[in-house]
């Protein structure tokens, strides 16, 4: 909270523009958080403080809203993300085994990010691509009917080693 956002940062300008577009309305909080997370990749504390001030919302209200929704993250999700869908169709087709193996091979549990911030492993509760189960989303790209080896190879392609 003590480190204010630099006004020259293009991301701050974007955020300010979004807040203005929403007419500083408190009920647009979730829309504004979406937009902030899009430009920052996650929601740093000083961004939340900035939003609180701009919308005249108490910090506790902002924090409670952010932590309620799975989409919002208070820490970096990693440069590359590997998101395993654990919806019912994927579950029936062995998503849990894929996740287990992936966790073992990357040394990362779901929700964790590697020490060098290169890779983050996440789970989703269903991305609605059930016809293609099991699916994994690598950097916003849906991989259909996957096997663990395929995913590991694609991750290696993306981040180099490991």
């Amino acid at each position, binding site marked *: *909270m003590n480190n204010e956002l630099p006004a020259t940062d293009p991301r701050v300008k974007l955020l300010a523009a979004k807040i203005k577009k929403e007419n500083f309305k408190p009920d647009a909080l979730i829309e504004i958080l979406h937009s902030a997370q899009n430009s920052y990749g996650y929601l740093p*504390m000083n961004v*939340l*403080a900035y939003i609180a001030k701009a919308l005249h919302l*108490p*910090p*506790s*209200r*902002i*924090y*409670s809203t952010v*932590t*309620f929704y799975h989409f919002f993250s208070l820490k970096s999700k990693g440069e590359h993300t590997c998101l395993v869908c654990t919806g019912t169709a994927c579950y029936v087709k062995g998503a849990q085994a894929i996740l287990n193996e992936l966790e073992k091979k990357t040394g990362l549990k779901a929700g964790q990010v590697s020490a060098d911030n290169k890779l983050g492993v996440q789970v989703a509760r269903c991305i609605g691509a059930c016809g293609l189960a099991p699916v994994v989303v690598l950097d916003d790209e849906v991989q259909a009917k996957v096997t663990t080896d395929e995913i590991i190879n694609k991750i290696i392609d993306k981040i180099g080693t490991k």
Partner: protein
Amino acid sequence: MNTIDIKINERSLKVLPGITILQACRDNGIDILTMCHLKGLSDVGACRLCLVEIEGINKLLSACTTRVASNMVIRTDTEKIKRYQRITTELFFAERNHVCSVCVANGNCELQELGYKVGMDHIRYPFLFPECKVDTSHQYFVMDHNRCIMCTRCVRACSEVEGAFNWDVKNRGFQVRVISDFDTPWGESITCTSCGKCLQACPTGALWSKDVVQGQLEKHPEMITELVEKRKLLLT
């Protein structure tokens, strides 16, 4: 003034339209268990202790949020309701780490009293033993999450009566916790006015003042009710 006829536990009553079932019960000396309700604060229907059966409605409804209607037939004392009150109480105790013997509120605790009322001689569910923090950073007060039952009376007292909005709730599911500001230590809050209303609103030993010792905590939740009543004078 116009009244309407309702029936609670076979008793025919005349009550004011628009009041809640809970109000109707309390006005007529019918005991109803509550935990998240505190007169003067908004009602959220979260603790589910005040569930009642209403003829013609196949769901149990919370008395604190349901308004009376003409010819409503209500039951507050069925076997099912009593059984559910007991389960709810057990779940309260099993959820966090409640150890009455070392608690500041021992003897002055609404949760403890609830245990006696429903005749809880033991708890059938495994304790969850979550890791909970004790925030002692505030100059005068302590927040002990081990004893919090998530009734959110403190949250509502802080926002609705004091207007400070220091408290809110973070996360969801069984991981919910009461937070101050950005989950910052209470002592570093930029919104808390140190008014102490949350302490008075709290039904357990979760919020207490540093100047009391074990078993010595006295609470006055009715203070919140009175404040709200007195505020109304400004509007007349």
